[in-house]
Structure formats: C-alpha cells, structure tokens
C-alpha cells in the first residue's frame, strides 16, 4: 500500500506538544536554567556552567540526606510489602466481613498527607498524645522531638500505618483473581501451605506486587509532607530526607542554583531507579512466558 505524504498532519500533533510543553518541558527548563546560573540579586544572572552540579555531588550534606533517604525507603518497603501480603492473605475471601475489612483498610489512604502528619504529631506527643503519654507513663524514654531513634520509629510507624493499605488492596485484588480450581489442585497434590503461597499465590500476585513496590518506592523516595509536619526534619537533621533538604535549600536559604541542580539530579535518580526496576521485572516476566 502506498502511503500518502501530507506534512499538514504534523499540526494534529501540535495540541499534545503544546500541552506537554507547558505542563512539563517549560517548567523543567526554568529549573535547568537556574541550575547553570548564579545571581547576586537585582535579577541579574550570569552563567556558571556545571559548578552547582559539582558542588551538589560533593556536598556532604546531600550525601547524608541521600543516605537517610535510602535507609528510610528500604526500611518501610521491607516492612510494608511483606506485611501487606500477609494481611491480604489473612483477609476473608468474601461476604460481609470482606467488605468491612476493605473499608477499614482503605481508611488511611483517604486521609490527606498533612493531616496524617498532624494526627501523629499530636498522637505521639508526650504531654497530651495518647501514644506518647502512655509510653512516658510506662517509663519508656520516648520523645520524637528530641530523640533520634524515637523520631525515626515514629515516622516509620506512621508511614506503615498510612501506606501498607495500598499494598494490601493490590495484593487482595491479585489473590481474588485466582480461580478456586488452583487451590483444589494444590489439595489434590498435597501441597503444603508454604507451597501454595510459593507456587500459586505469589506468581499470580507478581504483577500487582510489582506495581505496589514501584509505587511505594517512588512515593517514599519523594516523601515530604508527613515528616515535615511531624518533626520538621529534626531532631537536628536526623529526619531531613531529600525533599525536605531540597525545600530548605531552595526556599529557606534561597540558594536557587544549587537547589535547581539538586532537583534535576533527584528527578533523574528516581527516573533511573524506576526504569531499571520496571525493566528488570518485566524481563523476568518475559523469561517465564
């Protein structure tokens, strides 16, 4: 078949290009613009090349924030994914209780981030918070605004409370799609409970689990609001994760250049990890296919 050449057809792509341009490319380019310039005020900028990028790459402060970020993301994923799977497996398969469980489990997901932060901020206070006061009364040395370990534990429990539901819901959906014949066949083959999980439930859940892990990675790697409300990045810098540090740098210190360079690298890291993650997982899928 001979294709007709009509250059006017490019105009049909124009609306999309404009939309993407205004929503993503142009804002990103202003950041790129800041990242290669410096200013002494009066809205006068002069180019500095890659100086800011070099500075950020060698900055101990950023290294520390990145370290804390990786530690935080690893811990919450190591808790939320297995816990989510476990809860999904324990949930009733049908009937009224299944609906009740689903509603209760979904509740944390419906609460806005800053409200979650506020809830835990008050809940964990040693003077008036139920959790904090109880712990203090029991004689446990707990104070999230002064003690680093307390702050970390509180933030991790808060994130687990807020986001495990997402993993549960996705896994539950995956489990529900397994036909009963599989369980029947496993009984006939005298498969152990572990084998049922290993060879039936886990493979059938793999697709949704991949999505759950990816979402939890991206969200936790970009976490800002909840720890900001709860600890404000403290005590000291103990809970200053990447985005908190970025905001401090950009708005607190008004270091636009370094902050812009930092933003770009932050963005690229998330993009890269997500891409690697996705490619590896979908390749595993293909090999099995």
């Amino acid at each position: 078949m001979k294709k007709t050449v009509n250059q006017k057809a490019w105009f049909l792509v124009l609306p999309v290009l404009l939309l993407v341009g205004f929503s993503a490319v142009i804002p990103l380019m202003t950041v790129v613009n800041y990242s290669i310039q410096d200013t002494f005020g009066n809205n006068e900028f002069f180019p500095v090349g890659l100086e800011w990028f070099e500075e950020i790459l060698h900055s101990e402060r950023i290294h520390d924030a990145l370290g804390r970020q990786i530690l935080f993301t690893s811990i919450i994923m190591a808790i939320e994914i297995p816990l989510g799977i476990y809860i999904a497996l324990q949930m009733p398969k049908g009937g009224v209780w299944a609906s009740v469980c689903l509603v209760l489990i979904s509740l944390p997901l419906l609460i806005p981030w800053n409200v979650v932060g506020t809830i835990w901020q008050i809940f964990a206070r040693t003077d008036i918070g139920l959790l904090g006061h109880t712990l203090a009364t029991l004689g446990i040395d707990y104070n999230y605004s002064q003690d680093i370990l307390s702050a970390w534990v509180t933030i991790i429990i808060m994130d687990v409370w807020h986001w495990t539901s997402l993993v549960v819901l996705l896994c539950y959906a995956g489990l529900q799609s397994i036909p009963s014949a599989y369980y029947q066949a496993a009984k006939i083959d005298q498969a152990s409970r572990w084998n049922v999980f290993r060879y039936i439930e886990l493979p059938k859940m793999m697709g949704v689990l991949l999505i759950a892990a990816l979402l939890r990675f991206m969200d936790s790697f970009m976490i800002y609001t909840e720890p900001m409300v709860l600890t404000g990045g403290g005590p000291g810098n103990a809970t200053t994760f990447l985005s908190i540090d970025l905001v401090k740098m950009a708005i607190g210190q008004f270091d636009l250049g370094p902050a812009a360079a930092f933003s770009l690298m932050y963005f690229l890291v998330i993009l890269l990890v997500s891409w690697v993650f996705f490619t590896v997982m979908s390749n595993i899928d293909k090999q099995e296919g």
Partner: protein
Amino acid sequence: MARITLSNLAHSYVKDPQNDKDYALRELNHEWEDGAAYALLGPSGCGKSTLLNIISGIVTPSHGRILFDETDVTFADTTDRNIAQVFQFPVVYDTMTVQQNLEFPLKNRGKDAKYIAQRVASIARSIQVEDILHKKAQGLSADQKQKISLGRGMVREDVNAILFDEPLTVIDPHMKWELRTQLKALHKELKHTMIFVTHDQTEALTFADKVVVMNVGEVVQIGTPQELFEKPAHTFVGYFIGSPGMNIIDVEITGKEATLLDAKLELNQSYSNLKGKLELGIRPEFMTLCEEGCGIKIEIIRIEDVAHHKIVRARYDNKDINIIVEEDVIITKTMNNMTFDMDKVNIYENSWLVEGEKL
C-alpha cells in the same frame, strides 16, 4: 485404584430441603467399578458437577455415604482421598517447568528421587510431553497445559480415581479429538477409574465404557453407549442422545395393538396394566420414508442434506418428526409416509420405559 460406592447419596444446597426440587442431587445408589471409564452426561445444572464435587471432596453430601472400596470417605478431606482431578481450565504451576509440575505431587508425598525420576519419565512418555519437559509451564498452549494437569494426576500409581470436569472446554476443536483419543489410550494402558463430566454426547459416547445420564438432579440411566441408543430408559435420554434425538409420539395401547392419531400398529410385545401418559419412541435411524399408502401419512416440512445422510423434518400429530434417509435415496413428492422398524420401537409410561411380554 478403588471401587467407588455411592450409598443413598443425595445433596441439597438448601439447609432444610422440603421436596425434590430443593435437591441438587436426588437420592442415588451406584457402584463405580474399579478401572472402568465412566461419563457423566447431562445438560447444564443437572447436578453432574455436584456429584463430581462430592466424589472429589469439595462438597460434603447432605445425605448418604460414599465409600472408596470399604473405606467410608464421606467426610474425608480432598487431600486424604487420593484422587486426581482435571479441571475445566488448565491448572498448572506457572513458575515451574513441566518436569517440576509432574514431580510435584510425588515430592509432596515424600517419595524418593529415583522413583520420582522413573515415574515422571514414564508419564511424560505416555502423555507425549518429553520434548518440553524443561520448558516453563506458563508459556504452553491450553491443550499442553491440560495434558500436564492430567499427567500430574496419573503420576501417582495408587490414585483412586481420575475425575474430569469438562476438561476439553478450552481446547481447540482439532486438538479435542486427539486428546480424547489419547485419554482413551491412556485408560487402556493404565486402567485407572476415570469419571468424565461433560454435556457433549459425542465426548461421552466415545470416551466411556458406561455413560451415566443425568437430568434435573436425578440419574435417569446408566448404560453402555449402545444401550442408551437402543433402549433409552427415559424419553429424556432418547431425546438428549442422538442427533437428531428420538421421536416421541402419543399413543394408546391395548395388548399388542398401538393406536396412533390415525393409524394402528402391531407391536412386537404385549403390554398390560398400563396407566398414565403413554408414548411411543422411535429413533430417526430406524424409520423409513416411503410412497403414499405404505405407512402412516406425515406432513413433510423440509429436507436437510448433512454429510452422510439426509434428515427429513416432518410433522405428525402436532409433533416434530425426524427421519434419517440414506444419502443415495431420491425423495420424490409422493414419498410422504413413514414406517417403523418394529424391533426398535420403545414404549414409555409417564416418560419411563416399560417392557412388555415377548410374544
């Protein structure tokens, strides 16, 4: 391998069943002989899946008992029944290779490696999957997967019975035939008791030594394919089996004389004490179409040419009549009479077959 006995077995999904209608499976006594191939045949919702699920242990019957040889397994769990089941949709362990799939039931039962290897090799040969043993099960076609789930059942030598729940539903038509032939061959070779649930009469008749025909929760007949064809015990069987099914005509009978709407026939048997609704059943294969005046006049609607014969669709006494005519017979306009092969005529009282006295 075992003989399976169903004793006064019945099942209702309703808690407190009042009448026959509440029963998904009405009371039933039957012995499944060891090593025979059975087909459970019936339309959707006739209770055949319920019966199969009772045998496999998914459903506990509300009445009666089920025995494997002399052991009562009515309340035994599926795991303890040592049966195998092939489901409507292929059930394989996707992440395992074909070989691991076949090894799985034996490994779980703690058999030793040498025995497992030898059994798997022998079963792989039987179901012809030797060339794909090291492939992941996930990427295989539906018929190969179905073979593997069958193999997983047969790999255990001591399996009591293999149950098939419409296993050819998702298989391509040209593979259906092949799989069925293989199943039949496997049955001959290994002599497992096999119970094959289906709503397809061709499947049932070609696979089974004995066919159990069910309708609305009731077993209406158990017999060889030939018995079902020649002596259907119930008009339902006559109608359900055969293509087209048996012709059913209202009739009055005194002694050996049968009175149809406008004709009298002399039967080969004599009947007495007949009460209730009487019907005469005759298969389209055992009827002939002939010239005016030689038999009973019918109104011919149309003639269908199917591959090896013609089907004459006609009306008599407000009922549809089908007659099968050899393909080389030329049907003329004046051929509008039917005659019966009197040896093949069956008489039904309230839909159930009655035998008369031979003369």
